[in-house]
């Protein structure tokens, strides 16, 4: 029982970061239907940015992640206008090709610049564990969890309350009527793409201390992000947050009971099951 609860707790800690990644993709794929196969690559860029700040300027990743977020936001905004907008209204086929191309350029570009070596971010926080009775939690993961939690709440508030956030949801619900309501669709879509990549950057920065960094580090996260969005229900940003937490716990429990190496298989199994039996997502409402 203790092992079970411990695994759940660990799963939630990872899950919060998954939620952040998933919400980023939800803004891009769920809301705008841009099939973004480069999400993991954006995450990787965020990780490298945070790592460089740490390595060269000795800036703690828990400050550096914000810079990564800003960088990826700007990058995403430019990328939208140059490469994404031309394929926005084309078939998923073309969007997948375009974003796969971007992912290849980013990943192999990173490899060209930084080499294929693995890097580790040594901060003292990573070796500290907090104990409470029989349970123990890694301090760094807990901090990431806290920051991710704040960001998730902030984003949810933004989407619900803020006028721009509401415009964003309006476009998600009906892209034909939204412009009639005086919404500048292109501007909002550019913004929401940039927000999505910015979130990937933030999540990358927060993930950095827990992972070994190498150019291909983001690849698994692209598929994970899609699993999360599908779990949460297309078009729902809050759903993606829940989907992320759920995936974190599911992976953690699989590691405990079946074996570490099968955790990734669970991602895909969940994905295929949800798509086959409840395509609107576990937390999604059926839409006409």
């Amino acid at each position: 029982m203790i092992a079970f609860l411990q695994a759940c707790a660990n799963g939630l800690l990872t899950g919060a970061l998954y939620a952040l990644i998933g919400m980023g993709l939800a803004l891009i794929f769920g809301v705008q239907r841009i099939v973004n196969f480069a999400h993991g690559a954006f995450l990787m860029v965020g990780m490298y940015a945070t790592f460089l700040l740490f390595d060269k300027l000795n800036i703690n990743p828990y400050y550096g992640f914000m810079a990564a977020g800003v960088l990826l936001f700007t990058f995403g905004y430019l990328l939208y206008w140059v490469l994404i907008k031309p394929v926005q209204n084309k078939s998923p086929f073309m969007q997948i090709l375009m974003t796969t191309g971007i992912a290849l350029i980013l990943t192999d570009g990173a490899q060209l610049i930084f080499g294929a070596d693995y890097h580790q971010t040594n901060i003292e926080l990573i070796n500290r564990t907090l104990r409470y009775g029989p349970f123990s939690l890694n301090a760094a993961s807990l901090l990431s969890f806290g920051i991710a939690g704040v960001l998730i709440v902030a984003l949810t508030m933004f989407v619900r309350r803020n006028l721009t956030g509401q415009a964003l949801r309006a476009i998600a619900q009906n892209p034909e009527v939204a412009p009639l309501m005086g919404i500048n669709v292109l501007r909002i879509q550019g913004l929401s793409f940039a927000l999505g990549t910015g979130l990937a950057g933030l999540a990358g920065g927060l993930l950095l201390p827990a992972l070994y960094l190498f150019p291909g580090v983001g690849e698994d996260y692209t598929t994970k992000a899609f699993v999360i969005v599908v779990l949460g229900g297309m078009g729902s940003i809050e759903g993606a947050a829940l989907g992320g937490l759920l995936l974190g716990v599911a992976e953690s429990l699989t590691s405990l009971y079946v074996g570490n190496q099968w955790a990734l298989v669970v991602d895909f199994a969940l994905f295929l099951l949800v798509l086959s039996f409840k395509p609107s997502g576990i937390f999604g409402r059926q839409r006409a």
Partner: protein
Amino acid sequence: MKGLRSWQLWAVLGIAAACASVPLYVRNDYLLQVLFRIALFSALGLAWNLVGGYAGQLSLGHVAFFGVGAYGLAIFTDLGVPRWISMLLAAGAATLLAAIIGRIVFRLRGPYFTLATIAAGEVLRLMATNLKITGGAIGLTTPALFSGQLFWKWFYLAAIGLALITLIINYRVSRSRFGYYLMAIREDEETARAVGIDSLRCKLQSLLLSAFLTALAGALYGSAFQFIIPDSVLALDTSVQIAIITMLGGAGTLLGPVIGAVVLLSASELFKNQFKESHLLIYGILIVAVVLFMPEGIVGALQHLFRRRTKPPDVAAGIAPGGRDLSGSGTPRRS
């Protein structure tokens, strides 16, 4: 390419004969190895074309069949089956796998289909990494289908043969009722079903055929490089590479995959010295350029150019011949 006149057939045969005679004057192993990969990826692109080109289903899971071909060859031979029969058995196993995977993934559309095919391929890679029979991350040694000093020559010839067979199958399919069904599904699946085409069955059949051919190529590849690991024959990158080769050349055209393979593989080989491990960078740049500037691929773009110069536009076109219009309709379809 639809109206393949007899002179064109002779031209293809002539080119094939020219390709087959290459080992007569090329004796450099490195060059033969590069040519082997170009021929092999032509075959892979052509096999993928059946599903991704004619039926318009963007599969990024073809590496699953490729991997089963390679692993199947190693495992069946290990069990005492003669090599060439193992190769066929492996292709049979891949076809069986395609029947199972197809039933799941073909119920999904658009990006979900693509994601599900990725998931299928990745599950296989993870299984191969973790199971004992596949040798885990260390992998397996594969039996040599050809040996001796001139083995690259024979592998190259086998790959050319496979590419030619796959090309002929593509040609037959593109002119058959079955092929028209596939193209109808690609253009508009709802309408195709409405006129009585069993779309699930047609898509499944195209996948079975494609999987069989892909597995043969996988077995050749595995055997040529003598040992296989999950990251070499079951990597997502290979699926992407196969799809991109076909899209670059022109999906749904006969010569597109071949042209794509020649262009992409020679480009990546040329840039390999500059970029070393990062040779996929050139793929990325080419894909982005193709999507922006010639969404119908090289062959599609050439056909446009050619058609515009020679004859007035064909107004009463039913299913657009040749190059597929990948740009999609102006209005996004929403689910």
